[in-house]
């Protein structure tokens, strides 16, 4: 399974891969440790960047094709590898490259910056092609039996494979942060990216010949079938990690532990166990190797096994163990816990703002209508006394009382509008917003598609949210016109308010928009503002209303 020297050469390339894998693991480890400060954590990985991940994917593609080419070339018997980096056996290159790519991508995902789509494909394909041609130029006369067919298949299939893998990776990377955030609050689901490497390594361990060079003389058929099955398994691993990131992460962690244990055991017993012919693979050509080289390979394999085992063990408490505890009911589901936290917060805010509103109404009533009623009562009382002795004065007092009662009514009307606009009670949200638009001091177009009434608390919250946004536009935006679109589709109420004003509205700067956001949050609603300087300003609100 691991990079392995052939023909008794020094095992240094395998050592290089061990070191590189260790570096990638450290980067991923750091990213995990400092997940709350993604940019800082991702800086070393970020410098290496997504193109390196793409390069590794290209290398992995290169590593997967030789198995096929070897079979093609050696179907009639013979020796040697057709396409390979000098001194680097391709069947070790594939899992090593995939493992490094997974570790690096895991670290990079924390930074949430994703490269342009074509970068991955191009870099992957170019890397594959470069490896192919490097080999061609250095080994064209080395007697490995180069045929035109081999070169053509290699030059075409490696870049095509790498380009596809790169495209899949970029799609994955662009959709991954959101998907992983949804899958797991703690973010450890990112480790699902290790699954393809685990699948390939396991395949190698089991000696399934999927990505291994077939023995000479096995024929084209089994090699091609094995290769296609291998690709299908790899694709299934990718689909699995996208659809069930948590489960994939758990599987990857468990797989790493298993492979690590196996590798370490191989290293310890590699020289004595008859069945372990080649490190990492029960059927390799290890017995043919010189004793010293086999020893080096065992030591290196042991180091790599220890590395993989350490990675797996370190991942266990991040992935498998919490899930297991959850499964046994020892720990709350993080999604549920987050929901409870949200609800507690929004409930506290809702109760708090309702209490504040009641206090405001109490104060308004006390200072306004209540005071006026007291005055009216006093006036009438005095008028009652004066009605015979000074009818003119009494009449004046009664007039004063009538004026005060009109003023009290006016205030009550204003207060009621602020509490619950009559139009909202009469006709519901759509008509109330239309009435609001009609009463504005500037032209406002409305496009409202709300055939049914919504729940009363929701109507009220949405009305005041729209009213606040519209008031902002009128007061601060110097707008000449407004548009309000409101529609309910698929259990979601969507309201869009557009003004042609000066722009520059920012919910973070403490205008009423922050209050609107809080008010909508109580209904799991959201608010989005686009307001470039110079306008126009678009405010979108979305509230579930199933």
């Amino acid at each position, binding site marked *: 399974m691991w990079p392995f020297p052939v023909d008794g050469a020094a095992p240094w390339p395998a050592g290089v891969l061990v070191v590189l894998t260790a570096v990638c693991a450290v980067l991923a480890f750091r990213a995990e440790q400092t997940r709350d400060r993604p940019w800082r954590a991702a800086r070393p990985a970020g410098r290496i960047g997504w193109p390196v991940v793409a390069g590794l994917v290209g290398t992995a593609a290169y590593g997967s094709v030789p198995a096929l080419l070897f079979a093609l070339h050696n179907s009639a018997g013979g020796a040697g590898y057709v396409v390979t980096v000098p001194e680097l056996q391709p069947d070790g290159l594939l899992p090593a490259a995939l493992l490094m790519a997974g570790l690096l991508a895991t670290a990079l995902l924390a930074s949430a910056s994703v490269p342009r789509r074509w970068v991955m494909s191009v870099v992957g394909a170019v890397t594959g092609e470069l490896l192919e041609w490097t080999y061609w130029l250095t080994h064209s006369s080395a007697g490995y039996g180069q045929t035109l067919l081999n070169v053509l298949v290699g030059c075409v299939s490696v870049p095509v494979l790498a380009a596809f893998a790169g495209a899949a990776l970029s799609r994955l990377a662009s959709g991954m942060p959101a998907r992983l955030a949804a899958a797991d609050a703690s973010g450890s689901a990112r480790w699902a990216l290790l699954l393809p490497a685990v699948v390939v390594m396991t395949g190698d361990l089991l000696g399934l010949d999927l990505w291994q060079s077939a023995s000479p003389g096995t024929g084209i058929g089994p090699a091609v079938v094995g290769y296609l099955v291998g690709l299908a398994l790899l694709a299934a691993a990718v689909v699995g990690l996208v659809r069930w990131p948590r489960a994939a992460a758990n599987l990857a962690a468990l797989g790493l532990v298993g492979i690590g244990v196996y590798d370490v055991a191989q290293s310890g017993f590699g020289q004595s166990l008859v069945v372990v012919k080649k490190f990492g693979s029960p059927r390799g050509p290890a017995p043919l190797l010189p004793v010293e080289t086999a020893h080096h390979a065992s030591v290196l394999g042991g180091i790599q096994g220890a590395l993989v085992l350490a990675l797996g063990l370190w991942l266990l408490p991040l992935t498998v163990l919490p899930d297991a505890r959850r499964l046994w009911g020892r720990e709350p589901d993080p999604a549920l816990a987050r929901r409870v936290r949200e609800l507690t917060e929004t409930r506290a805010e809702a109760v708090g703002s309702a209490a504040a509103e009641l206090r405001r109404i109490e104060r308004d009533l006390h200072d306004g209508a209540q005071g006026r009623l007291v005055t009216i009562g006093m006036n009438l009382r005095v008028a009652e006394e004066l009605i015979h002795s000074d009818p003119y004065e009494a009449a004046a007092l009664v007039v004063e009382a009538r004026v005060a009662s009109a003023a009290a009514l006016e205030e009550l009307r204003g207060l009621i509008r602020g509490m619950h606009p*009559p139009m909202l009670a009469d006709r519901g949200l759509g008509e109330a917003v239309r009435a609001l638009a*009609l*009463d504005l001091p500037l032209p406002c177009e409305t496009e409202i598609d709300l055939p049914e009434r919504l729940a009363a608390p929701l109507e009220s919250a949405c009305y005041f949210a729209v009213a606040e946004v519209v008031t902002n536009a009128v007061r601060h935006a110097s707008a*000449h*016109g407004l*548009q309000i679109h409101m529609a309910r589709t698929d259990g979601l109420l969507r309201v869009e308010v557009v003004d*042609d004003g000066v722009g520059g509205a920012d919910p973070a700067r403490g205008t009423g928009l922050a209050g609107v956001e809080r008010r909508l949050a109580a209904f799991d609603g959201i608010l989005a503002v686009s307001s470039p300087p110079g306008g126009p300003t678009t405010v979108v609100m979305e509230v579930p209303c199933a």
Partner: protein
Amino acid sequence: MRVVVAEDLFLLREGLVRLLKARGFEIVAATDSAPGLLGALLEFRPDLAIVDIRLPPTHTDDGLRAALTARERMPGLPILLLSQYVEQIYAQELLADQAGGVGYLLKDRVFSDDQFVDVIRTVAAGGTVMDPEVVTKLLGRRGHAEREPLARLTERERQVLELMAEGRSNSAIANRLFISEKAVSKHSTSIFTKLELAPSDDDNRRVLAVLAYLMSAPHDGRTPPSH
């Protein structure tokens, strides 16, 4: 004059009935719900219905809907809406048939009973009366003030237009503004010219034309704000 009163607050209903009886109106029915109102209107075919917008059973706009239903069956049936608040949408719906004989007032206006009785007589005679608050809202749209022909009106013409929209006759406007009736008719001709409306001597046609103009104006010849 035979009047039907629909108001769900007992005290207010009794107060209205007492006020109207004292002024010589005949109250043929006083009801407290929308179905009761519709029944009374169809049965008694009164000269006027005074209707609170918000009535049982749903306590929303049942009164308005019952009154509009009755008017569909008896075109021109004079309706005077009373409410604690005014809404342009309700005014639009009331004026939609352009037939006149409608009024829309805040309940506060009942306090000034002379004026209130004038309104009742105007509406019963097929006239149109709008609460000053409705008219203020209509004139308050900035679309008018900045780019409509309304901007060309003089201050005095604006005052005349406001009173005209409320449904006042030339003589009432003259009294209110302390000018001669002749001056009022001169101003009104000038207003109609500036607003490009066909002149009319009929008071009611005139009110309806002005209200229709005010309600439709913001959408005329204007492009919507661009995205």
